């Protein structure tokens, strides 16, 4: 009877399993198949020629990928540094006030990313909220706040803030207070406690937050377009251009596949850097 139940459970779950497989995997499979098709075809009934992949180097698309990865790395590092004190406070210090911060940060997600970024454009542009006030009060303004690389990093940090903050707070909450106190009693300095106790024990949260922020930032497009004035062309922008103005679905698919492979590689490498099971106290 137990075996029959297991079988019935499997068969009942099968339709949903198929739906999930089709929704998640089918688009990826189509993208992978298109990536090996000849240039500028719009269906899969062609002999694969892999011609889009050499283009990645010949046409300089690798520069856009490097920019995207570089920006994602910078923003992830800055996010970690900026979020750590707040996450620590949320996990260990603020008590009930943590809920207020959580709601405030989550509320920002209710407004679309583009609208929030437009808000920053209006704030930072020439004659905008900041420049306008500075001009009126002191007669000097900030001319070049928009349309440069640092403002793109700022945009990424701003947009992906919650994706680093909450996993980090969760990670820090896993650090036992006893361990910190014991380290302190045994003469460890604050720096040593951070390095030897907090960081290793909060590593799962750090890794999850970093991966989320990095992966999302590497595929981001709006920050470069709206705040950065396309000072640099990110890889997601190249994918969009190939699919639309280029009318070259195989090239767009190949760029997407390369992006997925590189980011997937980084993610797997990152997860392997730490032994999550050991940190979580599980035995293998």
């Amino acid at each position, binding site marked *: 009877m137990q075996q029959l*139940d297991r079988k*019935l*459970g499997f*068969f*009942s779950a099968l*339709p949903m399993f198929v739906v999930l497989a089709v929704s998640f995997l089918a688009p990826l499979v189509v993208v992978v198949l298109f990536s090996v098709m000849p240039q*500028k075809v*719009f269906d899969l009934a062609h002999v694969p020629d892999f011609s889009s992949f050499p283009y990645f180097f010949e*046409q*300089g*698309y690798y*520069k*856009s990928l490097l920019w995207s990865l570089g920006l994602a790395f910078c923003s992830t590092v800055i996010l970690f540094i900026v979020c750590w004190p707040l996450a620590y406070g949320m996990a260990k210090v603020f008590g009930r006030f943590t809920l207020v911060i959580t709601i405030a940060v989550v509320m920002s997600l209710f407004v679309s990313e583009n609208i929030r970024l437009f808000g920053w*454009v209006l704030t930072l*542009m*020439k*004659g*905008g909220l900041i420049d306008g006030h500075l001009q009126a009060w002191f007669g000097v303004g900030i001319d070049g706040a*928009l*349309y440069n690389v640092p403002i793109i990093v700022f945009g990424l940090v701003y947009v992906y803030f919650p994706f680093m903050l909450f996993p980090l707070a969760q990670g820090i909450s896993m650090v036992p207070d006893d361990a910190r106190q014991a380290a302190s009693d045994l003469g460890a300095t604050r720096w040593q406690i951070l390095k030897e106790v907090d960081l290793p024990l909060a590593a799962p949260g750090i890794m999850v937050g970093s991966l989320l922020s990095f992966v999302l930032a590497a595929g981001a497009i709006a920050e470069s*377009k*709206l705040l950065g*004035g*396309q*000072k*640099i*062309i990110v890889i997601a922008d*190249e994918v969009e*251009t190939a*699919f*639309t*103005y*280029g*009318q070259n679905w195989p090239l767009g698919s190949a760029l997407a596949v390369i992006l997925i492979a590189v980011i997937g590689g980084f993610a797997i490498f990152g997860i392997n850097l730490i032994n999550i099971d050991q940190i979580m106290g599980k035995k293998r």
Partner: protein
Amino acid sequence: MTINRRQFTAGMMGATGLAALGPTSALANRNDQMNILCWEGYNSDEVLSPFRRANGGSTVRAESGTSDPDMINKLRAGEVNVWDLINVNQPWAKAQLYPEGLIKPLNKERFLPYFENMLPEFQAPYPLAFADDGELIGMPQRYGPFSFVVNTNKISVDMAEDQGWDLFLDAAMSGRYGVLTYDNWNIMHMCMTAGIDPFEAVEGDNLQKFKQTADAIFAGAALKTDDLVAMNTALINGTIDAYFTGGTYTASPARFDGATNVRAITPKRGPVDGKGGLVWVELTSAVNNPDPSTLAEDFLEFVQSPEISKAVAFAEGTYNPVSQMGDEKVMSLFNADELDAIQWDSLSDDLSRSSDYRVVASYDELNELYNAAKRG
């Protein structure tokens, strides 16, 4: 939880029932529904609500696209089953949609008479609305000259028209202009800046000339964006004095808001049969939907009426002249501010200096060079 055979069977019956509903509804008669894929404007309440009222009980849906190729991608990806009408710029219908069987001919008897009341440029009948086999493949309505835009407080209209595309190669303009990244337009305009006719094959030295021009224009750009509001804002607040690629379509929202110093310019001369500007004309075509709706042609006829023509011209977002302005009844619906927003005073001159937007013969090669230049 234990699942017994009866519960399992009931679940499977439910799933089968749900699956059976799909095809049944898909095969239903579609003459009480119509879906249009269009540029912004045709999807506004001012246009759709009267049509819904006139066809009581019908379901009329419209989706606005962000670029011609984006909308065409939807049809190519199999959405011919979804849409009844598509509204894109003139060369796409003739060069790609019709040859690929994505759109179908319109009823000439029903639609040819409407050309008689159009502006002179669209009468006789307008050649790009017809396929090579003579079939009518779309109705023209909104149009606009499209070259570049300046802040007339900084650059005079006369100077901009005289200097033309060379304005953007002037060393004094470096860092003083933006590039609106409507890539397909920029490719044509960069050809014209390089003194090349984009509608002829571009080869040899001309490819090198195009590359140098594209490199120079991107190198001197203070900002690049595909957002016309951001570009107009930068023009108004003084971040830039001009932007590369733009026209009445992009300048009109700022002008209608009172910033009449934002002005679309058509160069006096250029390499396309001596013309320095380009003009876009939207064509609305019937999608080759295997389960067509009769409402599609009804709607196409409906938007030719004076009130709806005006509503299409001044719908949300951007404001544009319409070919139906050749009809007194349509013209009388526009007030002075509206005519000023679409630069009616110089529209006829601008059109005479503009060539029709056509298919770019060497688009693939130029697109590669263009994107490499944009990347830097």
